[in-house]
């Protein structure tokens, strides 16, 4: 190995590049940025302002936070519904004034003041909701105008009644309690804000109206077409926002015992900034109450911190402007480019040096030398089938195969002309096996392990295994169940080819070449699924040895076949029996002469082998080139290979014309014939094997003669 290659192998095999992509697939990454911003903000201001975290200083900030976060909660709900409410500052101020007016000037009870406050907010919210929801005006401009309207009204009222409020003698213990006291160290406003946030969160995530809000925000058109009352839902979000702002207004009325020209000033841009900085998306559908609250804390800490650091007039607006612009831009770019970034960084190739191999060229004299025998096969279902990955025959000689359309098709013996859909499963049925009772067991791509009974009842056996603690991507889910076989005791051994890609992205897995394939076992007695082996490069075919004491499984991208021992001294361990083949192995099945058939889905090429030693090149390729121009493994030529118990190659055959069976993913011997399937083929081949036992069948080999 040259020094350059050693460096490459260290760089690409030891540095866990793939984790970046896996982390990006997680939804919580949306929360990570605002959370880090929150920690950073608190850290910076906490360290440069002495006494920032002192209880008395926190007390004052949190009181404000309680009122502010209520407003932000309302704003968040409106934004989740795809709108925006800029009038919250006016609603806040007017509600505050309503409470002050009822309490101090009319000298009514504090509860009446609360009712007046809430009524103000609800009416104002309803006006916004009517204009934006029912008249479908532009939310931004409309609420901007209602904001000016409300503000003008408030200014008039406040200048008219300011003196009267000053002179009022009204007093109330309740008001003082709400305004000044604390409860378990937190002020009343904070408790109310927390309660409101929890209720809103539960409503949004676990109730029908909440889901409607998210649906309308996520896609207004689809929500409309799905029968959701879009207009009413939008209307309700504004009413809710008005409600939240009015509680905030009531609380500040209690705290300050009055209303001034500064009440609620700039609140709308602060609330908007808070929601956006927290990660609530413009345009709706994405975000949560928690994000809004994080944003509220960030914004309030920033603005209060700057005031306490002694920066002058205007600094707040400057900082708010910067934060809003940056947050909105990040939000928009993040939403637009997240999947692009993900596509770009997800493929993280590793270094692999494939071993020297024997030639498969016809006439080269090696046991692998391919020939043209398979081109002579008869065809079954030509043009009717799409993607028979695996084929199998039952005791009555009927032929079964999966198709791309998620069906298992049955061809009737003896001529295999007539066919029917045996069962519809969905997904893409890949490996097939019959159990002792005659149930057809299938590995269904992207779905799991399924069983189809003789009377066509489809039953899911397994869709997950245990989750490993260190994996970031959810490796409990079966992403690419590929082939299965059944031990004499009824346990089903099957492979899951990769943890990183779904079944249809198998080609990306070949380019990445990361060893994430697994061998699993499903136990029908208790329905459990266990992972037996992990860390193979695309585990594929599985075949129980003739004596049932071990099984063979193929490791496609490494061109190897392993033997896994079920019994005996080596039970539970695997050993490599065939290495460095010239082709990529796929399914393995029993042959009548005590040997095993193995399909080759494609052939190794020097160019692709070389590219495996250049992970940097493959990485650049996946990032810079369109997928059509990528270097893939050659799957235009395949074949069928027979090997013996010890891994020795007996013979190989192929279709070098490429006309009938260029790529072979499966073959099954039955009564002297070999039935050949290919995942990209449009037929099943039937090839007469010279010298084969004309009475041997696979079900009999597994489960004995007909009972």
């Amino acid at each position: 190995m040259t020094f350059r290659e050693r460096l490459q192998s260290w760089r690409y095999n030891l540095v866990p590049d793939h984790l970046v992509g896996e982390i990006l697939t997680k939804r919580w990454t949306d929360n990570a940025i605002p959370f880090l911003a929150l920690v950073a903000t608190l850290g910076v201001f906490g360290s440069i302002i002495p006494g920032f975290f002192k209880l008395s200083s926190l007390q004052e900030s949190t009181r404000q936070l309680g009122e502010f976060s209520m407003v932000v909660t309302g704003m968040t709900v409106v934004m989740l519904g795809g709108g925006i409410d800029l009038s919250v500052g006016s609603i806040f101020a007017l509600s505050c004034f309503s409470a002050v007016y009822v309490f101090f000037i009319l000298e009514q009870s504090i509860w009446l003041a609360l009712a007046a406050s809430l009524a103000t907010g609800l009416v104002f919210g309803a006006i916004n909701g009517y204009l934006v929801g029912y008249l479908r005006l532009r939310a931004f401009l409309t609420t901007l105008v209602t904001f000016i309207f409300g503000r003008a009204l408030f200014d008039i009222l406040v200048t008219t009644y300011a003196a009267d409020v000053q002179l009022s003698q009204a007093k109330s213990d309740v008001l003082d309690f709400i305004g000044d006291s604390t409860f378990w160290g937190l002020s009343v406003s904070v408790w109310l804000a927390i309660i409101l946030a929890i209720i809103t969160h539960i409503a949004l995530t676990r109730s029908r109206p909440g889901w409607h809000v998210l649906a309308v925000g996520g896609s207004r058109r689809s929500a409309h077409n799905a029968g959701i009352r879009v207009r009413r839902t939008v209307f309700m979000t504004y009413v809710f926002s008005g409600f939240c702002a009015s509680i905030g207004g009531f609380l500040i009325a209690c705290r300050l015992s009055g209303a001034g020209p500064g009440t609620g000033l700039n609140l709308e841009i602060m609330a908007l900034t808070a929601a956006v900085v927290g990660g609530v998306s413009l345009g709706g559908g994405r975000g949560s109450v928690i994000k809004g609250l994080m944003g509220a804390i960030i914004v309030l800490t920033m603005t209060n911190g700057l005031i306490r650091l002694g920066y002058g007039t205007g600094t707040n607006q400057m900082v708010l402007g910067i934060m809003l612009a940056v947050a909105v831009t990040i939000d928009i770019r993040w939403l637009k480019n997240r999947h692009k970034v993900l596509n770009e960084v997800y493929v993280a190739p590793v270094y692999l040096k494939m071993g020297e191999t024997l030639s498969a060229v016809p006439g080269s004299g090696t046991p692998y030398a391919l020939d043209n025998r398979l081109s002579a096969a008869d065809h079954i279902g030509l043009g009717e089938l799409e993607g028979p990955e695996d084929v199998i025959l039952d005791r009555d000689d009927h032929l079964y195969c999966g198709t791309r359309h998620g069906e298992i098709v049955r061809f009737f013996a003896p001529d295999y002309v007539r066919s029917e859909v045996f069962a519809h499963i969905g997904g893409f049925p890949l490996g097939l096996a019959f159990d002792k009772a005659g149930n057809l067991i299938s590995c269904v791509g992207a779905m799991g392990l399924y069983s189809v009974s003789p009377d066509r009842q489809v039953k899911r056996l397994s869709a997950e295994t245990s989750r490993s603690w260190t994996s970031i991507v959810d490796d409990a889910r079966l992403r690419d169940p590929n082939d299965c076989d059944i031990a004499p005791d009824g346990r089903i051994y099957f492979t899951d080819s990769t943890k990183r890609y779904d079944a249809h992205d198998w080609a990306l897995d070949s380019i990445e070449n990361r060893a994430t394939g697994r061998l699993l076992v499903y136990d029908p007695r208790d329905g459990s699924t266990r992972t037996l082996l992990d860390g193979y490069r695309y585990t594929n075919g599985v075949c129980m040895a003739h004596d049932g004491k071990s099984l063979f499984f193929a490791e496609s991208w490494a061109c190897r076949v392993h033997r896994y021992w079920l019994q005996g001294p080596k039970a539970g361990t695997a050993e490599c029996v065939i290495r460095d083949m010239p082709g990529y192995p796929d399914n393995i099945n029993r042959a009548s002469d005590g040997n095993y058939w193995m399909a080759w889905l494609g052939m190794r090429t020097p160019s692709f082998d070389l590219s495996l030693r250049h992970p940097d090149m493959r990485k650049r390729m996946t990032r810079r080139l369109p997928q059509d121009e990528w270097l893939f493994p050659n799957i235009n030529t395949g074949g069928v290979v027979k090997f013996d118990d010890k891994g020795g190659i007996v013979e190989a055959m192929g279709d070098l014309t490429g006309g009938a069976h260029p790529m072979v993913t499966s073959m099954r011997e039955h009564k002297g014939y070999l039935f050949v399937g290919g995942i990209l083929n449009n037929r099943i081949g039937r090839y007469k094997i010279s010298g084969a036992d004309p009475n041997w069948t696979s079900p009999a080999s597994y489960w004995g003669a007909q009972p």
Partner: protein
Amino acid sequence: MNAIGRPSLRSLNQEGIVFAIAVVLFVAAAIGLPGFIDPNNLVAIVRSVSVLGILALGMAVVIIGRGIDLSAVAIMAMSVAWYLQLLNTGTPDGLAFAYVLAGVLAIGLLNGFLVAYADVPAIFVTLATGSFVFGYVRSQLITQDAVPVPQGHWVELLGGLRFLDIPIEVFVFAGLAFLFFLFLRYTKWGRYIYFAGDNPVAARNIGIPVRPMLVLRYVLSAFVALIAGLLTAASLHSINTRIVNSTLLYDIVLVAVIGGIGLSGGRGGVRNVLVGAALIGILLNAMTIIDIPLLYQNLIKAAILLGAIIVDGIINPRDEQTAQQGDI
């Protein structure tokens, strides 16, 4: 005028209606209000709407291109305030003006870049930059709310300039209106604004440089704001930065929208701005003569703007099936 730029029948109606209302209001005020028809008062009306009209021209260009510029007033006040502050602290005039030009250009470019290339909705970009411009200039560059014009400076002389007893800003407004008319109607870039405003995707597909044109509009709007700011400072001999927090910004939108420039872009022109400015000018003047307090005037203007937006929404309704996601 070719087919695409022509106001549709509907907005022609709106323009006509608004014009008729303006005429009726004018006649009513002339009959009912003492001193309204006085030539000095008429000059005062035109003068009072000049700055508003100039700002509305810039806004109109942006709105026709399916955008909005909420930073216009901040740019207008703060650029001039900074300019005057530089002069008052002894910076040479040429250098100070160069600084301000560069600053205005930078904000225009920033607005345009974020809208055009980062695909951020114009309304958020300009809200944020407006807040930033005010905050930055107020906290870092100037020391008090109002900045006076230095004695004998050309801005002061500009304010005293008269031609036929009519203040200079009226002529500036008229001249700019004519220039914008020529620009929108007869230049290639002017036509592009209508195409891009009407259907940005189609405009891009036929090869119009939609994004650079977007940037151009915001830069244009920023410079128009600077001119308006200079004229304001000229007539008042100082600039008060508190104007940023006033309702002036919404008056500008009001002039544009009420004149019949649809917020969904692609239609309207200089004539709409003139009609809108006329109506608002008469209205404001009449309210001042009747002696309605400023606070109530704000309330009335807000109500009118709300009415104008509702009418705009009814005339150009948005459909559940075709409304753009995230178009708020």
